[in-house]
């Protein structure tokens, strides 16, 4: 009886939560499916048009990301060394770099499908991991693609993505730290700007 009660109250809570906001897994799923649907129909993106892929990512994916948090994670303790103005530039440049990478990955999309692993949101949780798996028709290896989300005033926001256990955000930590060590925050800003400009040149060539 107690168990039954617990079960019901649990159900009640989860439905009230659902009524108020989009659950993290739903957010991940609808965004992913929407983007893949567009990529499947878009021959330009499939043939490597990074510019178009970037526009798609900017429009559909980015509103669900918290880039300030991502940049802060990648900067670790150096984040607080940066002035608010530097933090702003760093966030913008890191944003550009991540979007470009994400867009590049989209142009490599063939006909993989995404599977969403079972997910339960415990009441009161504000920091969650949504696990998905990329499957390639026929086989080969599946790739785990996990999203870390945190709850904010404006809904759930992704603050990290893990590909096969590799966090695309914290993977920059060592390179950022060593750049800051060698040439300061401004050095890192310059490095990111140079990297992003070279990326621009490359995508124009295509």
């Amino acid at each position, binding site marked *: 009886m107690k168990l039954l009660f617990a079960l019901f109250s649990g159900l009640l809570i989860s439905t009230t939560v659902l009524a108020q906001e989009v659950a993290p897994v739903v957010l991940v799923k609808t965004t992913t499916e929407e983007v893949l649907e567009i990529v499947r129909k878009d021959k330009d993106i499939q043939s490597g048009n990074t510019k178009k892929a970037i526009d798609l990512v900017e429009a559909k994916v980015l509103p669900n990301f*918290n880039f300030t948090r991502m940049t*802060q994670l990648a900067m670790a*303790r150096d984040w607080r060394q940066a002035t608010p103005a530097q933090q702003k530039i760093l966030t913008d440049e890191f944003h550009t770099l991540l979007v470009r990478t994400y867009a*590049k*990955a989209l142009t490599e999309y063939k006909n993989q499908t995404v599977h969403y692993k079972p997910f339960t949101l415990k009441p009161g949780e504000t920091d969650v991991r949504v696990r998905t798996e990329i499957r390639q028709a026929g086989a080969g290896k599946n790739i*785990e693609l996990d999203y*870390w989300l945190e709850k904010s*005033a404006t809904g759930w926001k992704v603050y990290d993505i893990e590909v096969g256990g590799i966090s695309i955000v914290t993977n920059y930590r060592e390179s950022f730290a060593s*750049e800051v060590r060698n040439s300061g925050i401004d050095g890192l800003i310059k490095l990111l700007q140079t990297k992003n400009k070279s990326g621009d040149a490359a995508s124009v060539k295509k």
Partner: protein
Amino acid sequence: MKTMLPDRIKSFTLAIAAAGLLAGCASSGNPKDPIEGFNRAMFAFNEGLDSAIIKPVATGYESVLPSPVRTGVTNFFSNIADLLIGVNNLLQGKGSEALSDLGRVVINSTIGILGTFDIASDIGLEKHNEDFGQTFGRWGVGSGAFVVIPVFGPSTARDTVGLVLDVMADPVAQVSPNADRNVLLVLRAVNARANLLPADKVVEEAALDKYSYVRDAFLQRRRNLIHDGNAPREPEADAEQVERPVRAEAGAAEPRAGADGVAPDSPVLVARTETAEAK
């Protein structure tokens, strides 16, 4: 590229000896990478070898063979690898996983026509990823220094020892006559490289410094594999320690936006490592 067994062992020994010799050299101070100078040189060598020979061959292979054939090749070698994966699961005390690996081999070798079709995955026997390096990690052996091995690429001290065992126990390496064995080893290597071609462009796009990007990705990946995909999030480096008192407070009361330089729209996370471990 994987060539003959004695050569490969020779290059290990060389690499380990060289790594040992250079261990005293100066580095940029990353504790995970004490022989960075040597590693960067080896990394450059491997990159050169890859762009001169391995990648062009893999690209040709990819363009010549249709995708279903390449999938068959991948599955064929993946099926053979399942044997050692099962052994390693057993060594790690994961009996049911080991049993499932054995089941995979039986099913895929028969119904899956010599392993070319991965029927086992379709019926729910999940493919695992294990090797001797992971087994050592599971037993509590630390990874030791990061090391780039000629031809084989990124590794760690622990994983290099694991790799020697992997190579010695490799069923493909036992094939005779040698000519057949060599064809199989080359085919496996080329096919594996071809599978990685799409990732190349993404890494180029993402990396500020390719060496450290690959190194850190490799270390994260290994850590994740040892935890079978459930690695707790890495602590937020030094920032974590400095901020801890603030975090504890933030957990009890309102998130203190701005208190530690965090923008108001990115509340300080509380106890995220615990959350990760709970799963």
